[in-house]
Structures are given as structure tokens and as C-alpha cells.
């Protein structure tokens, strides 16, 4: 293969022959952008499975048109997501893009979509609030909701059911945790709770011990919105330092991989609530069916679909449903297809009814979960509450919600 490449580099004349993108008119091309390198690779791979599952369920075709799936990898940076999308559009000639995985990438593709009005973008799992709330793009659809929607139910549960009045926040210093904190605080502060201090830590910080000792001793609980290694590090160090406040988790903080890792901190997590749009061992009938379909299709995948498989699946599934409605007709800059997408209503794997708001952002179901100890001593998450029909304004008047301004380190605030 390397020989080929060198030939192309050396003799541009040869390369010129490769310019014309091969395209067969009948195919519907779906480009998928996910993170297949670095720390997110395993998760990004699961997102791809979600798309493949949706396509497989449709038998690989829509109204006689074959569906071709083309995959590109990004590396979590917005630049790489944009490059991947451009390659898919301009070189591979895709009609639809499903992706990306992370928040900053989502904002970047939202901006890019405005330059390619003939292509329809369906968000993967990226969950930044502004992707659809502010400066929305006509051809960018998000069925999975944003990071604030994913926390709905947790704030009131913590205040009303668990009786917490004062909560400290420890979260990574970038847009996704900001959004999660907003989702939590909107409810929690409205219910009368206070958040005296927020600790924003650089992503990838190894040593949280000094933060641990800075947490005020009079709080009732600590809301932790950290991901992956950061969460493991913080929780371990908090436990080792003798920290004994209950934990409230963000959507990616108390996932199964952390519950499966070793360490005495785990005992402390029992009973910890968290918010998430996807619960791996949810026992709704639709979810069980979805899980069976997933494990049947991908024996080497996870034991149950992750949040990424779920969200990529929903986008691809929605695209296929809308395509079926218009018989695969993508003419006229996909006008009919998009109208079908906009009006789409379908039952999600979690049993709710999915539909879009006027910004083409999903009105989703959200779960409040709780860590519990299984009979064999391992830990799992179980659903304590399902909140149906969560919109992007979190149930508030949209204009008033917008007027609160974009989320940041200091917004919202209720010390």
C-alpha cells in the first residue's frame, strides 16, 4: 500500500487520474464520523456499531436503494472532525453524515453544515448545548439531546428525595461538564439548594488531592462531572483522604467501566445518583429487544449497548425511517427527506417517543439512576426515575431560558 502512496506523491500526473470520485447514482451514502483513535477509540467503535445495527435492521437498503456506510475517524479535535466531514462530502460524495462523538466536534460540524446545504447532518453523541440552541443550522439534526437534558431529574431528586441542601461541584474545565453542571443546578437551585463552590479542574489532571482537601466540610454531597481516568483518580483520592460525603455523578462519571474497576472507593458509590439518557441494564421491553439485537449482531461488542451505540443508532435509525417515508428520494437538496425528519416520531430503544423541537433538537427521555450492589457483590446502575419528554429548555419558557445566557464557568450560579 505504501508503494501506491509513494507513486501518487511522486508523479502527480498519476494522481490526477484519481480525482474523479467514483459514484453510483442509486446508492445512498451515509458517512459516519467517530473517534477511532486515542482514549475514546473503544467508545467510538461502539458508535459505529450503532449505525451498522440500524442499517442491518433495515436490510441494508431503503426502497430499493442500497445503503453504503463510509467511516472516517476524528481524534476528538474539532479540526479533525471538520476534515473528516469534508472528505466524506467532497471526495466520497455522501448524502448524510452521522456524527460526531464529542462536544467541540459537534459545534464544528454544526458550523460546517451551513456551508453544505445539500448534505444532512445527524449528530452522533456530541452534547454541547449551543450546537442546536444558539445559531442553529437548518440541516443539522440532533435526536439525542444535550448534556443539560441528560441531567434532568437529578437536581430535584438530590434535593427532594435525598434531602441535600448544599452541594459542591468538581468538574472538568470545558464545555461538556459546564453543560452538565447547568442541567444539574437548574433544578437543584430552583428547588432551593445552593452550590457554594465549583472546582473546575484541567482535563487530564492526575492529582486531585489538593482539590479534595479544598471541598468545604459543611456540604451535604459532591457533584462530580469527570470522565474516565479523571473520575477514577478523583474518586480514589477522595476516598483515600477520608472524604465521606455522598457523590452525585454526571452522565459519564459513574458508568459501568468505573463501577467495574477495583478499589475501596466503590463502596462509597452505593446509592449515588446520576443522570443519563442510556442505562445499559434497563429492563424496559424495548431496551431488552434492542440489547438482544445488538449482542446478536456484534458478539465481540460490549455486553450491552453503550450511550454511544444508542445515540448513533438513533440518528441512523431516524435517517432510515425518514428515507423510507420519502422512498429514498434525496432530490431538491433533500427537501422532502428533511421535512420527513423534522416531522418524524418514533419509539426509541428506551421506550419513549422521539420527536424534534423547532431547533431540530430531540425531546428525549432521561433517567435518574442509582448505584446498587448486585447479589454477587459487583456494582451496577439501576433506574430510580424516568423523566419523559425533556426538551432543551429543561421545561422552562424557551425565551427565558435563552436569556440566561450561554453556559460558562460562572453561569449558572447559586452560592
Amino acid at each position, binding site marked *: 500500500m505504501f508503494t501506491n502512496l509513494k507513486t501518487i506523491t511522486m508523479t502527480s500526473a498519476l494522481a490526477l487520474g484519481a480525482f474523479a470520485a467514483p459514484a453510483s447514482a442509486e446508492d445512498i451514502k451515509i458517512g459516519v464520523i467517530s473517534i477511532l*483513535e*486515542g*482514549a*475514546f*477509540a*473503544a*467508545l467510538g467503535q461502539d458508535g459505529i456499531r450503532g449505525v451498522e445495527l440500524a442499517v442491518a435492521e433495515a436490510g441494508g437498503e431503503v426502497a430499493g436503494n442500497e445503503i453504503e456506510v463510509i467511516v472516517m475517524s476524528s481524534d476528538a479535535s474539532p479540526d479533525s472532525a471538520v476534515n473528516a466531514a469534508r472528505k466524506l462530502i467532497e471526495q466520497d460524495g455522501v448524502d448524510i453524515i452521522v456524527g460526531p462523538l464529542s462536544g467541540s466536534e459537534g459545534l464544528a460540524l454544526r458550523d460546517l453544515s451551513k456551508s453544505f446545504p445539500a448534505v444532512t447532518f445527524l449528530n452522533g453523541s456530541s452534547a454541547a448545548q449551543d450546537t442546536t440552541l444558539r445559531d442553529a443550522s437548518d440541516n443539522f439534526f440532533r435526536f439525542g439531546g444535550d448534556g443539560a437534558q441528560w441531567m434532568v431529574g437529578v437536581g430535584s431528586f438530590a434535593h427532594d428525595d435525598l434531602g441535600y441542601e448544599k452541594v459542591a461541584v468538581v468538574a472538568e*474545565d470545558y464545555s461538556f461538564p459546564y453543560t452538565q453542571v447547568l442541567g444539574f443546578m437548574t433544578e437543584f437551585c430552583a428547588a432551593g439548594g445552593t452550590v457554594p463552590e465549583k*472546582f*473546575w*479542574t*484541567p482535563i*487530564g*489532571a*492526575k*492529582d*486531585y*488531592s*489538593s*482539590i479534595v*482537601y*479544598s471541598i468545604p466540610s459543611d456540604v451535604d454531597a459532591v457533584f462530580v462531572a469527570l470522565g*474516565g*481516568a479523571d473520575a*477514577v*483518580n478523583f474518586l*480514589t*483520592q477522595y*476516598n*483515600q*483522604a*477520608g*472524604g465521606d460525603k455522598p457523590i452525585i455523578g454526571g452522565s459519564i462519571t459513574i458508568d459501568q*467501566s*468505573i463501577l467495574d*474497576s*477495583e*478499589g*475501596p472507593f466503590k463502596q462509597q458509590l452505593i446509592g449515588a445518583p446520576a443522570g443519563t439518557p442510556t442505562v445499559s441494564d434497563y429492563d424496559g421491553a424495548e431496551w431488552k429487544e434492542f440489547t438482544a439485537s445488538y449482542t446478536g449482531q456484534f458478539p465481540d461488542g460490549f455486553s450491552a449497548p453503550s450511550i454511544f451505540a444508542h445515540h448513533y443508532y438513533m440518528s441512523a435509525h431516524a435517517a432510515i425511517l425518514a428515507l423510507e417515508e420519502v422512498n429514498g428520494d434525496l432530490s431538491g437538496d433533500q427537501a422532502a427527506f428533511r421535512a420527513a425528519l423534522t416531522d418524524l416520531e418514533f419509539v426509541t430503544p428506551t421506550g419513549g417517543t422521539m420527536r424534534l423541537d423547532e431547533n431540530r433538537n430531540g425531546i428525549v427521555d432521561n433517567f435518574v439512576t442509582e448505584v446498587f450492589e448486585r447479589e454477587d457483590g459487583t456494582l451496577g446502575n439501576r433506574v430510580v426515575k424516568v423523566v419523559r419528554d425533556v426538551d432543551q429548555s429543561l421545561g422552562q419558557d424557551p425565551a427565558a431560558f435563552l436569556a440566561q445566557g450561554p453556559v460558562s*464557568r460562572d453561569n449558572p450560579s447559586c452560592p
Partner: protein
Amino acid sequence: MTFFLIVTLNGLTLAALYFLAASGFTLIFGLMRTVNMAHGALLLLGGYVGFEVAKTTGFWPLGILGGGLAAAFAGALIQFGILGRFQGDELRQTLASIALSIIMADLMLWYWGGITYQVALPDALAGGFKLPLLGVGYASIRLVLIIFAVVVGITLWLVIAKTRLGAIIRAGVDDREMLRALGFDVAKIFIIVFALGGLLAGMAGVVAASALSIAPGTDLQFLLSSLVVVIVGGMGSVGGAALGALLIGLAEQYGLAYAPTYGVVFTFAIMVFVLAVRPQGLLGRSET
């Protein structure tokens, strides 16, 4: 006051970890003038292997040893198979080590996946204890970490000051040509020292995986911290690595405690300041 002391203690433990990571890096640099950009990858490899060994044997110290030896072997292999071919051409060595670090990171991601690993500690070290006088809880492993770094530091100093290999290293740092002129098998010595650097990196990896955790990306974090520690302390000086680690570890913890958002930037501010005032680093020799 209690808080300040705790943060200081945290700074010391972080410094201990940084010292373990940076000492191998500076040793290799001092003797061979090779900026081993694959040092972080060696550290991560040691961490993973240490995890496997500790899990299989259930014996934590064996994990440290296993991780160290695996990285030592990989380091020797790198020097023997690739970097040693361009001895004296430091730029190409550096570039080749960048390529190696990309490959190693990708292969480790393949084998161990993107998840986070923590080495299980023996029960005696797993939890915390109440610090006397201060009356707050503190992690046992962190104190062990400080002791471990001091032991490694003293051992390293003894090796360099008292043994034949140490004498060769000291002579080589001053004048590499002299080693050749005195009839030493320089290629062999370089491989040994690279293995030694790998050993230190690998052990640091297991210790890091015990006290904190390791995951893809840990390699770059420790490579960069080693780089900064060595620039501040003085390139090629083990004592400088200790001093640099102390400064950077403390700065990072004070930064995190008192100004979390700019904590990382403090670290680099120290570095730029040192560079401006004393370009060879605090304990480094002048370049010329």
C-alpha cells in the same frame, strides 16, 4: 494552615512521582544527548505490564519489578535496534523516538484498550490513615511513594557515585569521546544505560498506576512533565531532576489548590523563568 501543609505534602508526593519519571529521561539525555520522546510510552508500558503481573501474582512489589523489567527490555531493544544506529545524530534519534512513541501508543491501545487501569494495592496500603498532628485522613500509598522515590534516588546516586558503571556514566557525561578513546564498548554501555532509564520509567509507570491511574494519554502527560522537570532542573543531572521535580510538583499542587484554572500554566511559567535566567537549568552545566 492545615490546608497549606496538606497541599505541601501533596506536592511532595507528586514530586516523588515526577522524579521517578524524569530520572530515567535525564540519565539517558545526560549520557547520550538523546531526547527520548518514547520515554512516556515506556512508562505506560511498564504500568500496563505491572498491572498484569500484580494481578496474576497478587503480589504488588512483583508488579513494580515486572513493569520495570519490561520497560527496561523495551528500552534496550529501542536503543539496540533503532536509536543506536544513529548515535551522534541526535535529531534523527529524537525523530525516530517520536515515530516509536506513536507506534507504541497505538499498539498498547490495541492490546489494553482505552479504559483506565489501577493497580490493586495490598490491603495495608489501600486505604488512608489519620495524619498525626493535622488530624486529617491521608492516603498510605502516597507516603510509600515518597519513601520509594527517596530510596530510588539514593540508590541511583550510589550507583553513579560508587560503581564502575557510574564512573563510566560520569565520564561519558563530561566527554563521550573519551569513553571511546579509553576503549570502552560504547554501544554496549549505551544499551545498558537505556535499559536503566527504561527500568526507572517502567517502575514509575507502575507506581503511577498504583497511586493514580493509567490510561492512553498518560504517556504524553509524563513525557511532558519529565521534559519540564529536566529543563528546570538541568538537563542530564539526576540531582537536577530531583530539584526540578520538587519545584514542579509543589507548584502544580499549590496552583491546583489556590488557582485551579491556571495551575498548569504556573508550571510553565517557572520553566520559562528558569530558561530566561539560567538557560542550562538550575543544576545543569552550560551547553558549551
